[in-house]
């Protein structure tokens, strides 16, 4: 056992840090660090910069154009990116549909889609949840009926993230009603420009448009856009869950956020006019989250270092539960630190060109919106209650 990074890993960290310092556009970093509104272009621009360096897909193997980095290198890269204020790379293409295409897609699908995900040309989104199928995802009803060389897709997907920017959507669709609900599901790749697709915004509790309903009305999808075999889609979706054991922990992002909350607590004043950080009650809460984040980081590194040797245990669910709880706790503390200046709703001030007046500090503008927005952490990606079901039933055998 040795908890220190090797000299090679330290050198790698330095190389990453220097690259980011030279190449990350300042306007993007400013937005990320101050939690201002990011545009599609910000995310795509950063993806193209990484792509040019050969780092477009830190988590992919080399044969598909990835970096071939090991788990610890990926962790270091993520830490450096989040610390510097780089925007998060879009998960839907890189981390979600790509591994499925690599493992189960046809050669043609691999050759066409993977390079376009890598270069940032294609923006992907996800079509899993439906109005009647949330935690009970396998009950989904969106139908895909074979008609010659096409599937005809009808139904509604919901809780779709950033689909209004998307070029493609990967969907779980019902191709059979025989047998158990899981046995009639297929994994389809659908061009968002297809006639019959309607994207309707869902405004979330923070007043922002990030999420959509997507309606499919007799949408024609060529059969070559089926991934793998018909009715095996559930297996592919589950493969994805097992594939990404540490991604939902978000350690790098929470470390950066912890630094931000500390900084806010040093600038904000308590009732006595002293910096808020000197208030014991607030500080103890922050310390408690710091301890839990440290434990999360160690668990994450432990899984990255030894996980591949073992059968999947409770770690993916553990990291999702703890990661979401810690992120939520930090956003809550950030809001609390702002005191009553968290109240004003000034969404226009999330635009970096905003030159109007603020109430209190800039960090107060997104504080409550972030808190409201991030309640989703414990709901999406398999709610934390579903994660506890997975641990108790799949891992512990209850």
């Amino acid at each position, binding site marked *: *056992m*040795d*908890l*220190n*990074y*090797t000299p090679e*890993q330290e050198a790698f960290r330095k190389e990453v840090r220097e690259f980011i310092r030279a190449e990350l556009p300042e306007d993007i970093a400013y937005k990320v660090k101050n939690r201002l509104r990011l545009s599609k272009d910000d995310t795509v621009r950063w993806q193209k910069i990484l792509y040019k360096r050969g780092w477009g897909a830190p988590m992919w193997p080399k044969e598909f154009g990835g970096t071939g980095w090991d788990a*610890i290198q990926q962790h270091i890269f993520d830490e450096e990116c989040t610390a510097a204020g780089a925007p998060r790379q879009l998960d839907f293409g890189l981390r979600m549909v790509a591994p499925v295409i690599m493992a189960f897609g046809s050669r043609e699908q691999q050759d066409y889609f993977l390079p376009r995900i890598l270069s940032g040309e294609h923006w992907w989104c996800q079509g899993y949840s439906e109005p009647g199928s949330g935690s009970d995802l396998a009950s989904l009803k969106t139908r895909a009926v074979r008609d010659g060389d096409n599937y005809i897709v009808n139904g509604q997907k919901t809780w779709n993230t950033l689909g209004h920017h998307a070029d493609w959507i990967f969907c779980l669709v019902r191709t059979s009603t025989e047998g158990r609900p899981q046995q009639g599901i297929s994994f389809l790749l659908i061009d968002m420009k297809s006639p019959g697709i309607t994207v309707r915004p869902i405004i979330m509790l923070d007043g922002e448009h990030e999420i959509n309903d997507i309606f499919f009305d007799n949408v024609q999808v060529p059969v070559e856009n089926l991934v793998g075999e018909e009715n095996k889609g559930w297996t592919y979706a589950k493969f994805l869950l097992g594939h990404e054991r540490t991604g939902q922990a978000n350690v790098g992002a929470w470390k950066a956020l912890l630094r931000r909350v*500390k900084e806010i607590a040093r600038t904000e004043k308590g009732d006595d006019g002293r910096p808020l*950080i*000197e208030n*014991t009650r607030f*500080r*103890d809460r*922050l*310390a*408690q989250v*710091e*301890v*839990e984040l*440290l*434990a*999360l980081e*160690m*668990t994450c*590194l*432990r899984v990255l*270092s*030894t996980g591949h040797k073992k059968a999947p245990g*409770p*770690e993916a*669910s*553990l990291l999702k*539960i*703890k990661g979401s709880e810690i992120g939520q706790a930090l956003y809550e503390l950030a809001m609390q630190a702002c005191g009553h200046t968290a109240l004003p709703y000034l969404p226009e001030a999330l635009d970096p060109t905003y030159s109007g007046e603020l109430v209190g500090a800039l960090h107060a503008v997104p504080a409550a919106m972030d808190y409201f927005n991030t309640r989703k952490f414990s709901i999406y990606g398999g709610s934390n*209650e579903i*994660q*506890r*079901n997975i*641990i*108790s*039933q799949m*891992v*512990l*055998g*209850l």
Partner: protein
Amino acid sequence: MDFNLSEEQQQLQDMLRRYVAKDYTFDKRRQIVASEVGYSPEAWKTFAEMGLLGVTFPEEFGGLGGNAFDTLVVMEAFGRGLVVEPYLATVVLCGGLIRDAGSQAQKEALLPAIAGGELLMAFAHYEVDSRYALSKVATTAEKRGDGYVLNGAKSVVLHGEQAGKLIVSARTSGGERDADGISLFLVDADAAGVSRRGYRTQDEQRAAEIKLQNVQVGADALIGEEGKALPLIERAIDLGIAALCAEAVGAMDAANEQTLEYLKTRKQFGQPIGKFQVLQHRMADMVIAAEQARSMAILAAAKAQQTDDPAERRHKVSAAKVLVGQSARAVGQGAVQLHGGMGVTDEMPISHYFKRLTMINILFGDADHHLSKVSDALLSA
């Protein structure tokens, strides 16, 4: 970055787990804790033969030259079996102090004797009103001739009655809470002026109140530099905390395994109680708590042994004690609760795991104490 045990550590772990499961059964432990001395000399001899008693001592002093990760493996196995032998007091605390701060003569005299199983030691540091403050030492050591005379009282000294030698902290200068002026002395447990009142602890281990009345020691009894012992004590306690964290992880694993088994076998309302979601989720949270604690026990072991940055060491060890203490409480209470009425009987092992986990949280500072350390570090960070 490597979290894997070495091949030797893996073998040590396998050997110890087998030993605990086969030779240190719960019934065996019942006999041991009911005995006069409260530990098993026979088990202690076995530990010596296994090399456990000198695992972190240099080879020239009869040790194996291991590190805190070896201690982690040992303590984790001991936690699984609720082992009550004086390993923490003798090997981790006192052996560690001699190894890190003792003179050549002290090392030669003591380390091989500890490693061989011939000598038990106890660390007589805390006093009845010191709570967890390491610099609160009222016991005095007055210079007389070329030696010292010790006066004072030490409280809840782990295995103080069983030890042949004590390491006693005493003030050679300064006020009761000063950081400077504390010294460490090696004292024969049966020296004139030493009186000991031994007792059982809540978790069936042993401790003692120790009085020192005009106890005379020679100059060669001093460990390290006069008046400069606080950093040594802090490090020894940090190593002790790391060991306790590992022990807690072993105890949590065992408690969780036993609770899981109970959920699968105990039937109510016509089905195993583990089919009820409200119990499933509590069990899942207990498993999560134990995994997070395991991560922090590893961090504590890594940091406790580093010497170059004491503030960083203390910070991380405190963070570990916070999380392990809180996890130990959650797992202990949950395990008892899920066992229902059986959980609050003396008959079931689970109540004994609960008691040990509770005492581990208290020992060397509870979660709140260490949280205040982590919290205060935010002021300077």
